[in-house]
C-alpha cells in the first residue's frame, strides 16, 4: 500500500523523530511511504480555541496537500480525531460544502497509526525489540473519539523485551487539552501532577502514548521534576529493533528502507 504520512504540525516541528519512526516502521512492514510536502496542520488547535473560521483555510490546505492519497496515516489520535469529527463540520459551518465533502472523503481514508496497523494491516507483532519497562497512557481522543481500544496494547505486548506495566487511573486525562494547558495552567498542572504520580508509581522507565502532544505535556512535567522516567511515542517503540540499541539505550529507530 502507498501510505501518505501526515506528520502533524507538532511532531513535524518539535519531535520529528516520531515521524521518522512512523515512516521507518511502515516501510519495515512493506508499505511504500510518501510525505506530501505541502502538509501543515489539521486545524484542531484553531477550532478548539474558538477560531473555527480561521481553521477553514487550514482544512483546505490539508485537503489539498493530501489530495489523491490512497491512505493517510498519522501518529496522533487527537489529530486524526479532529480530521474525522471537526474538519467537515468547520467547512460546512462556513458554507463551503465542497470542502466539507472533500474533507469527509479524506477522513474516510485517514487512520491513526495503531488502528492502521491492527485494523487495516492486521498486524500486532511488528517485529520490534525494546528492552524496557514501559507503561501506556491511553490518550483521551484515541480512547474516546477514535475508540482505538486495546490496539496499542496488543502492539506493545508483542514487542520483544518489553515489560508492560499497567498504569493506574490510566483513562484519566493528563491535563494537556491544547490551549487548556496555558489558559487553565493551574488546573492542567494539578491533573498532570496526579498523572505523573501514577506514572512514577509504576516504576516504569518509559511512559508511552499515541499522541506526541500529551507526551510533551507529561514528559515536560517529568523532566521538570528530574524524574528518571521518560516519554517515548508508541511509534518510536514499535520502530525499535535490536540494531537500534545504542550504548545509551536511546530509542533510535532502525531505518531499513
Amino acid at each position, binding site marked *: 500500500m502507498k501510505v501518505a504520512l501526515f506528520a502533524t504540525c507538532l511532531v*513535524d516541528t518539535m519531535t520529528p523523530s516520531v515521524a521518522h519512526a512512523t515512516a521507518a516502521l511502515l516501510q519495515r512492514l512493506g508499505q511504500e511511504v510518501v510525505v506530501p510536502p505541502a502538509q501543515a496542520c489539521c486545524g484542531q488547535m484553531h*477550532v478548539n480555541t474558538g477560531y473555527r473560521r480561521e481553521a477553514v483555510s487550514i482544512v483546505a490546505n490539508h485537503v489539498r496537500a493530501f489530495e489523491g492519497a490512497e491512505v493517510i496515516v498519522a501518529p496522533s489520535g487527537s489529530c486524526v480525531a479532529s480530521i474525522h469529527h471537526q474538519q467537515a463540520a468547520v467547512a460546512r459551518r462556513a458554507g463551503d460544502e465542497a470542502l466539507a465533502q472533500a474533507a469527509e472523503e479524506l477522513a474516510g481514508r485517514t487512520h491513526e497509526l495503531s488502528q492502521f496497523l491492527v485494523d487495516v494491516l492486521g498486524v500486532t507483532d511488528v517485529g520490534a525489540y525494546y528492552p524496557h519497562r514501559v507503561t501506556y497512557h491511553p490518550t483521551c481522543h484515541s480512547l474516546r473519539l477514535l475508540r482505538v481500544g486495546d490496539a496499542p496494547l496488543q502492539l506493545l505486548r508483542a514487542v520483544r523485551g518489553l515489560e508492560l506495566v499497567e498504569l493506574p487511573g490510566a*483513562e484519566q486525562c493528563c491535563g494537556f487539552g491544547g490551549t487548556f494547558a496555558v489558559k487553565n*495552567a493551574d*488546573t492542567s498542572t494539578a491533573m498532570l501532577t496526579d498523572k505523573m504520580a501514577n506514572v512514577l508509581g509504576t516504576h516504569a522507565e518509559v511512559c508511552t502514548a499515541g499522541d506526541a502532544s500529551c507526551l510533551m505535556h507529561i*514528559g515536560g512535567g517529568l523532566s521538570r521534576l528530574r524524574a528518571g522516567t521518560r516519554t517515548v511515542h508508541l511509534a518510536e517503540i514499535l520502530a525499535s529493533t535490536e540494531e537500534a540499541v545504542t550504548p545509551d539505550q536511546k530509542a533510535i529507530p532502525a531505518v531499513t528502507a
Partner: protein
Amino acid sequence: MTAVDLGMPGLPHAPRGVGHLRGAESFPDAARGALRNGQLRANLGHATSTIRGKRANVVGELPDWEQLRAAGKALKTATMARLDEHLEELERQVTARGGVVHWARDANEANEIVTRLVQATGTSEVVKVKSMATQEIGLNEALEAAGLDVFETDLAELIVQLGEDSPSHILVPAIHKNRAEIREIFARTIPGVDPGLTDDPRQLAMAARAHLRERFLRARVAVSGANFGVAETGTLTVVESEGNGRMCLTLPETLITVMGIEKVVPTWRDLEVFLQLLPRSSTGERMNPYTSAWAGVTPGDGPQEFHLVLLDNGRTAVLADEVGREALHCIRCSACLNVCPVYERAGGHSYGSVYPGPIGAVLSPMLTGVEDNASLPYASSLCGACYDVCPVAIDIPSILVHLRGEHVEAVARDRDRPTAEAVAFRGLAKAMSHPRLWHLAQRAARLGRLVSRGRPTLPNALPPPISGWTRSRDLPTPPTKTFVQQWTEEHRS
C-alpha cells in the same frame, strides 16, 4: 418553536443581579485558590471516585444501557422540537386537576410569583425540597428579603444552608465537606444539638432529622422543584433519596413547584426510560428510594393548594442555539461532574454557578449569554469523559468548542482592535494555509534554539503566554530540521 410563540420580545438571557449563574471571578482565578485547598481536593477525590465506581457497576449490569441512552436522547430531542405544545398541554392538565400555572420569564418574575404566593398564605416559614431551579434563581434570598424564613430539608442542602455556604455539586451540594466538617457545622448551628455529637454518619443524620422534623410538622407552605412534568396528565415528579421531599410534598397545605420549562415530558411512558437512566447515573443506584408524583390537588389528601411556576430564565435562548440546545436535555444526574478531571480538582465553586462541572460549563454561559461566563467554555481539557457517561448522550465537548467559537466571534465583533490572541491565531492560520509561509514559521520556531543555548529544554522563565506552560513543565528545544524538510531533502530524486 420561537420566542414569539411564548409571547416574548426577543430571546432574553437570565438577568444579571439575581440568582446564582455568574461567579465573581473567572474560572482560572477561582480554581487557583481551590487547587491549593488540600482538604477540598481530598474530599472531592474521595467522593467522586466512590460515586464513579458505583455508577460504573450499576450501568454495567444493564445490557441495553446504550439503547436506553439513545432512547433518552431521542425523547428529549422530540420533546424540545415541540416544547411549546407540550407546555401548553401541561398547563391544561394541571389546571384541570385543580392546580394553578404561572409563567415566569426570568428569575425576577419567578421570585416575585413565589413570594406573593407564600405571603398570601399568611405564613412566615417555608420548607424546601432540594431543587436546582430555585437555587438558580436565588429564591431563598428573595424570600428572606421579604421577611420569610426558609428551611432547606435535603440533608446536604441543610449542611450548606447552616454553614452559610453555597452548593458545589448538582446532586451532592455539600460534596466539598467531609464528616468532621459537617459535625462542626451542626454542633455550631443547630439549636439544642447533643453536645456529644460525633462525626458518625448515623448520628449526623439523626441530628438533622430531629432538627427538621419540627419544621415539617409546623410548615404550611413547601417549595419544590421537579425532575419531570408529565404533560398528558399534568403530573409532577420529584426523585429523591431521603424522604424529606415526600414530607414537604405531602404535609403542608400549600405546595409551590418551580420547574424549568425543559423538564416537561409528553407522556408517562417516557418516564420508563428516564427513571432507569437517572438513578443509575446519579447516585449509582438501580432505583432511587423515593419517587413522588402528584397531579393538581386531591380533596382531603395532601396539599389543598398547588401552584406550578414554569421558569424560562434564558432557556428559550438556549433552545435557539442549534448546537447548544442539546444542553436542555440534561436530567441533572451529575454523572458528568463525577467523571470530570477538572471538576474533581477545581471543585464546584470555581465555576461560579449553581451548575458546575461539564454541563455547567455549557449551560451557564448559554443561560446568561457567553460574555457573562466567558471563561467557562475553556474550563475543560475536552477529554470527553462527560459525553461517555451522559445518560442522554449530550455531546458536551462539541458544545464547549462551539461556545468557544461563539465567544471568540463575539469578542471580535465588540472590539475595534483584535486581541493579541486573535492576531496570533490569525497569523498562524495564514501560515498553516500556505506551505511556503508554514515552512518560514517553522524556521522561526527554531529561534528557540538560540534561547536554550545548547540545552535540551527551553528556559523556565519565558514571557506570557508561554509562561503558562513553562512554569510547571519543560519545553523541548526545537530540532534543527523539521521532519518534512529532512525527508524531502533525503528523498529528492
